[in-house]
């Protein structure tokens, strides 16, 4: 389904598209080359560097954001392809300077060490609780199989998601 018309612009021989998104509740409009990944668009065009790029091959999950309510790996999507969508990144979770319950739970239960995978973990975990309010340990681990953490050993991440489930 075409959500909105894309405008093609040619700059220095590169095919550019005008990309209109609603990011964290704010409307944004930028020109970017057609092959710009959503992860690159967020980080380099919008300076939202909370979305991390770990592998660039859709394995590690550090780049997970929500597009129209579903979690996806933003290095898998072209920015032009999600034109017209609502995007939520890790920066969009706080309310008036107060952390999201999932962030609080990760902090409280030490669900992170170096923190590189954390934005993706948090975004994936929130989507899980949107779809399954009381997930079991197995369901949490299954849902997070595409989010790789090399520090924690996952125990505290699973504990944090369970804690957040009681608060959300």
């Amino acid at each position, binding site marked *: 389904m075409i959500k909105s018309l894309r405008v093609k612009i040619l700059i220095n021989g590169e095919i550019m598209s005008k990309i209109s998104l609603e990011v964290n509740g704010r409307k944004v409009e930028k020109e970017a080359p057609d092959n710009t990944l959503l992860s690159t668009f967020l980080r380099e065009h919008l300076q939202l560097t909370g979305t991390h790029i770990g592998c660039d091959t859709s394995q590690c*999950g550090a780049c*997970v954001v929500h597009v129209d309510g*579903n979690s*996806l*790996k933003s290095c*898998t999507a072209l920015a032009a392809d999600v034109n017209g969508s609502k995007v939520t990144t890790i920066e969009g979770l706080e309310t008036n300077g107060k952390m999201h319950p999932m962030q609080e739970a990760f902090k409280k239960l030490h669900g992170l060490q170096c923190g590189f995978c954390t934005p993706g973990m948090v975004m994936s975990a929130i989507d899980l609780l949107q779809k399954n309010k009381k997930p079991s340990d197995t369901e949490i681990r299954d849902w997070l*199989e*595409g989010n*790789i953490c090399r520090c924690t050993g996952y125990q505290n991440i699973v504990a944090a998601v369970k804690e957040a489930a009681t608060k959300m």
Partner: protein
Amino acid sequence: MSSLAEGIGDPQVRNRGTIGGSIANNDPSADYPSACIALNATIHTNERKIEAAKFFKGMFETALKKGELIEAIEFQIPEKSSYQKHPNPASRYAIVGVYVAKHKGDVNVAVTGAKSCVYNDKEMSKALSGNFSSSSIDGMDLDSSEMNSDMHASADFRASLVVTQAKKAVDAC
């Protein structure tokens, strides 16, 4: 095929990935290409129709020309079919995946992950076309000389996995 789809990558990949994108990329370990080979698919593009057997050319290479786009994929409905894979423990791609489909008359055994590109294993297809039972391929010694070999699985291990997964698929049919 729906259970194959359910086993691809992870939820965040499945929320975005498409079957057309998967087969156009033709990753040697992708799941969907095996379904196309096993189910005698026809790939419809904006220019022509291509048989799956002529579509997958080699590692990350397909018959698609510049500017050609996949618009639809048509599958032959088999009498029975099953896809079984041995996933990489960390990232879940198929170290070896085998899609067995029993059609009226013959059997396809499409293998992904084992070589540089998906293929139909003629030796197992022939054996299973004669007798559709896992015993007819039990202990089959496949040639591993063209199989992938890396830190996750040697060529010989992959050859053995192909037979194991094919047997599991036949038993699950």
